């Protein structure tokens, strides 16, 4: 009885007792969710256009952020370092396409997945060799990201919103909007979606597979850079960031592998729910740190009822 009370009643009583704290938790969850959504977006883009389950997205985030900070530390002005980092991501995209993807066209999914794990390991070693393994500070001020915090006082309480988090949320929204317009309106965007629908049909009407792949991996690189800046501003830049790739996987599964909308909604939902669960159920009842697995269990539960994720394309099997 007491157990049921702890699980079903007490958390909600806590929420009602301190609505300002609840708002703070929701906001934190939302910011985390935006980041998950961004990483998942990188995954979805690559999966849509090439059916590659790109495990390297997480390390691309770290690599982009490290390149930016590393260039700045070498004396390059921050505003010049940004386009230079983009150039590095373009070169990376071209190299990956040429060296890894092109020889592996038409291989089974799991082989391509393993290849992206290979890319991940290579980039970890390469990045640590060049930039060192220690934690670096993201150059927030040099990129004109405000660092103050805004304090609200709703319900006679106290909610603090950091301006860099606010910038992150707005920046992510702009980025996603731009991406949606690009995918739906531009010629290249249509080509990307065509490749996603049917490889051979797209090839036969003259869409170049390799060019589109480079573009898609470059876009994923840009998203990675944006994620890296935002996340780096919160937690510093180091290879520990790599674990966020694992946070994005359940987001992806929850939303559906092919759906851009699914990645965004899934990301926000998981960000908020895992924070709520951790604060109100995880810490008092389970000893904390439930964020490590909550998203996976949630995704697993959803998948049991919808095997293609919330927004994924219905899986039709033929024999």
């Amino acid at each position, binding site marked *: 009885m007491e157990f049921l009370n702890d699980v079903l009643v007490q958390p909600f009583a806590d929420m009602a007792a301190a609505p300002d704290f609840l708002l703070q938790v929701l906001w934190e969850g939302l910011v985390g969710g935006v980041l998950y959504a961004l990483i998942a977006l990188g995954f979805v883009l690559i999966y849509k256009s090439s059916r590659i389950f790109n495990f390297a997205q997480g390390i691309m985030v770290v690599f982009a952020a490290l390149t930016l900070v590393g260039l700045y530390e070498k004396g390059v002005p921050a505003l010049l370092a940004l386009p230079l980092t983009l150039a590095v991501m373009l070169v990376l995209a071209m190299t990956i396409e040429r060296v890894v993807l092109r020889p592996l066209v038409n291989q089974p999914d799991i082989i391509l997945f393993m290849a992206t794990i290979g890319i991940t390991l290579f980039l970890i070693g390469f990045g640590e*060799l060049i930039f060192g393994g220690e934690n670096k500070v993201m150059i927030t001020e040099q990129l004109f990201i405000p660092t103050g915090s805004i304090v609200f006082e709703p319900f006679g309480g106290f909610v603090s919103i950091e301006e860099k988090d606010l910038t992150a949320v707005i920046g992510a929204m702009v980025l996603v909007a731009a991406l949606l317009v690009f995918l739906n309106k531009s010629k290249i965007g249509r080509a990307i979606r065509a490749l996603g629908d049917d490889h051979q049909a797209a090839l036969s009407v003259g869409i170049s597979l390799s060019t589109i792949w480079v573009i898609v991996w470059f876009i994923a690189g840009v998203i990675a850079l944006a994620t890296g800046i935002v996340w780096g501003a919160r937690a510093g830049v180091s290879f520990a960031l790599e674990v966020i790739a694992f946070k994005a996987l359940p987001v992806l599964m929850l939303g559906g*592998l092919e759906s851009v909308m699914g990645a965004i909604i899934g990301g926000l939902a998981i960000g908020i729910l895992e924070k709520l669960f951790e604060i109100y159920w995880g810490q008092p009842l*389970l000893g904390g740190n439930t964020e490590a697995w909550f998203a996976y269990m949630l995704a697993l539960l959803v*998948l049991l009822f919808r095997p293609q994720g919330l927004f994924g394309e219905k899986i039709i099997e033929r*024999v």
Partner: protein
Amino acid sequence: MFYRTAGQFKTSYQADHALFPVRQDAFLLGVILIFAFVIFPLTASEFTFRALLIPVLIYSLAALGLNILTGYAGQLSLGTGAFMGVGAYACYKLITIFPEMNIVVAIAMSGFFSAAIGVLFGLPSLRIKGFYLAIATLAAQFFLVWLFQKWAWLYNYNASGAIQVPNIEMFGITVAGPRATAITQYYFVLCVVCVITFFAINITRGRIGRMWKAVRDMDIAAELVGINLMRSKLMAFFVSSYVVGIAGALFVFLWRGAAEANLFDIPLSFRVLFIAIIGGLGSILGNFLGAILIVALPVIIGSVPQAFGIPLDSAMVEHLNIMIIGALIIAFLIIEPHGLARFWAMIREKFILWPFPH
């Protein structure tokens, strides 16, 4: 050349399905076993046992378990490390609760615990497929490692949060714990690996193995020809997790001597997956070849700069190591996506036909 098959006639259906269709295969296996049982123990140093021979055997066993699931039954698993952890913690609890229990019995029983957990997390495979299924196994991975950290009963409430292997004797010889010698541990692991490999070969060759392969190739078609999907998938999860659990118990008891929860984290799962894929999915031999490569590579890379007199600090070697392994994985996938086992199969084919080109 060495593989002349001339004069070896099959006169019955049974002979066609024998374990060694070509006599030289049996001979080759005999030579390898002589090396493993006699020549290595006589020549290897303590370091070779601890850094090469024992880990190769244990990783091969773990990869064998994964290969049964992923290579034969076609169910992708990214949670091998956690299932190894279940085996290790189960064995630890059994040994500490029943100190007089024989370690062979304890290890054999700990496999059942991981098999049960494996079946539990395998249940979603009946509805979810492919990469979506990887989520179920990743859920197991993260949840179980979290449980190993938080559930103090598992590590007997000791302050360090780690499990420590006590000295365990079998027939008067210490086989596990700080007092055990490397050579006894090597023989112990070798015997377990040989027995399990023997069973694995025969399971995968027989009716059950063919059932799994049918499910792997197309599960709907398999269902239509009368294979019970639920039984065959869950059986694959059971057998695979059993073997993986035993590998986990050996991993801690006969090699590491102590373990914390994060030892079983995702890098271990990926390492085992690498071994299975580089060795070759759907092959027993491949696991051993892959394990030799993945275990020996860091040792070799570590020793090369010293041999040439190039001073490299250990952090640098570590980074180079990761980079080279990453590059090698990509290279292997491009050159031969079916793994080292296929390489061997092609070489063997060439030997049989030699000196003719086709």
